[in-house]
């Protein structure tokens, strides 16, 4: 399968400091990738660069084979959706209206919404299972419901690539499971999903594939077991990581210990 989005020798600087240093990563249609790494490894920077919000200092990002910089803004935003950890929308905004703003890249400032837009909004609300909240204002929702509304905005963009930065950071376990189940549904429809996830066992439980980012480069890549049990992971996080098999399946219980 061909890559939807990929980086080649990507260098990105923030505040005069190189945060990403020659990073190569490929994301294919319908693929799910958990991006893990220690604090300040450059995870958020990578996600924002893939969304076209930060420029590459060297190397390039290819979206559907074409350099990101060569795309018009709306061309990127109709293919790549970014869902952040925090929702900063006005509290009085209704869920449905918030989700509908995800259609901005398709319609621009003036064109009226069409049936396409309305059905995309309905589909996004249905996929995230928050149709019953459509007319509620954001301020009346729980943190988990707000995060789902934010995800629904991303889905309303009708993207080929969905980028999430710590999507489950503030969620209780039930909402976490719900959110990752929605991400699996989305993947099955052919959307490539890349999620930055801090919680390593959670990331391993969800992701078919994992990439470890350390000091601005991909230090390990593969199945969650391969990545977490690698020497690179122990070095990056500065801890000993051990997977304990549960039954006969591939599932692992993960143990983390401080190294002396």
């Amino acid at each position, binding site marked *: 399968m061909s890559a939807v989005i990929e980086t080649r020798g990507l260098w990105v600087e923030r505040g005069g400091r190189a945060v990403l240093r020659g990073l190569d990563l490929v994301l294919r249609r319908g693929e799910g990738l958990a991006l893990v790494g220690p604090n300040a490894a450059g995870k958020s920077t990578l996600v*924002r660069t893939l*969304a*076209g*919000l930060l420029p590459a200092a060297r190397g390039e990002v290819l979206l559907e084979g074409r350099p990101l910089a060569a795309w018009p*803004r*709306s061309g*990127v*935003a*109709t293919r790549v*959706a*970014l869902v*952040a950890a925090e929702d*900063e*929308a*006005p509290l*009085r*905004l*209704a869920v449905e*209206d*918030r989700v509908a*703003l*995800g259609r*901005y*890249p398709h*319609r621009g*400032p*003036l064109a009226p919404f069409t049936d396409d837009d309305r059905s995309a909004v309905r589909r996004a609300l249905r996929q995230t299972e928050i149709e019953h909240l459509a*007319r509620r*204002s954001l301020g009346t929702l729980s943190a988990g419901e707000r995060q789902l509304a934010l995800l629904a905005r991303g889905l309303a*963009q009708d993207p080929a690539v969905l980028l999430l930065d710590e999507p489950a950071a503030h969620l209780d376990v039930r909402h976490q499971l719900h959110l990752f189940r929605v991400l699996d549904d989305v993947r099955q429809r052919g959307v490539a999903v890349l999620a930055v996830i801090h919680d390593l066992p959670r990331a391993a439980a969800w992701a078919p594939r994992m990439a470890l980012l350390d000091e601005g480069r991909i230090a390990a890549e593969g199945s969650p077991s391969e990545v977490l049990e690698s020497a690179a992971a122990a070095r990056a996080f500065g801890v000993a990581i051990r997977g304990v098999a549960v039954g006969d399946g591939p599932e692992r219980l993960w143990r983390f210990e401080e190294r002396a």
Partner: protein
Amino acid sequence: MSERDRRRLVFATLAVALPLALLAALSLGSVPLAAGGVLRSAFARLGLGGPSPLPEMGEVILWSVRFPRVLIAALVGGGLAVVGASLQSLFRNPLADAGLLGVGPGAALGAVLAVNLGWAHERFLAMPLAACAGALLALLLIYAIAHAGGRPTLSGLLLTGLAVSALAAAGTSVLLVATEEFRVRTVLFWLAGGLEGRGYEHLALAAAFVLPGALGLLLLARPLDVLSLGEEEAAALSLPVHGVRILVFGLCALVAGPVTAVAGAVPFVGLIAPHALRALVGPLSRRLLPASFLAGAVLVVVADIAARSFGEYVELPLGSVTAFVGAPYFLLALRGQEGRG
């Protein structure tokens, strides 16, 4: 009552309240005119119905004095409210207001500069245009300072507005001292604010700037909504964040400058109208901006009635009337805001 019914009720109420307020403002004053007489005189002017029942003196008062003044009040209120609503979305702060952000003092500085340099005597448009420039400069300055360290907090924004206001006021004082004496009177009359003695030329001026400016902001309704989601999300949705902000500032200055040039400082209108309506019609700009225009117009038309009705021989400054109502409202809203964190 459903959300949609409530919105309809709000718009219907405003659509009825504005003509009623205008009619009341045309009738009331030191020479009261019967509302029925005012209406029939208006119909007579339009060539409908019989001749006007008003005496000649009443006709003069109604059409030469009150009519332009009342319409100016509506434009001033509507314009300031739309500017307030837009700035609230832009700064993502429900308590932003042109007055609190130093736009008024900035406009005043520009206008006084125009008088000081003698431009205002040569060209009628010089003063309002200079006021536009002053307002825009104040907005850009606040934007640059407040956004220098990321998203500004409410207190950061208000304090920056305070500093810019003080700076502009200081500049105005210095200019006043340096202005020739025969021009100082013009400036002081104007700085006091209010709508006394404003006629058709002021009405034309207000209409020529406020209506296109407000319409321009309404056309930016969707970008304003996207902007209210935060800078990063707006940029990720392909909004040219910086460009839209500058455009909104330009349109706000286009409205607020001439409004200040015509009516002086009319504080808090731009805060109260959108702040109160946000709870009733929701935060989407395509509803909030038109509703704010109507409510702001009603507010200033009524405030002007109060300013004129205070005593037989003296008028209250319009700005102090809106401040008497607006300042307590602001303080209450501020407490509510802080309570929410």
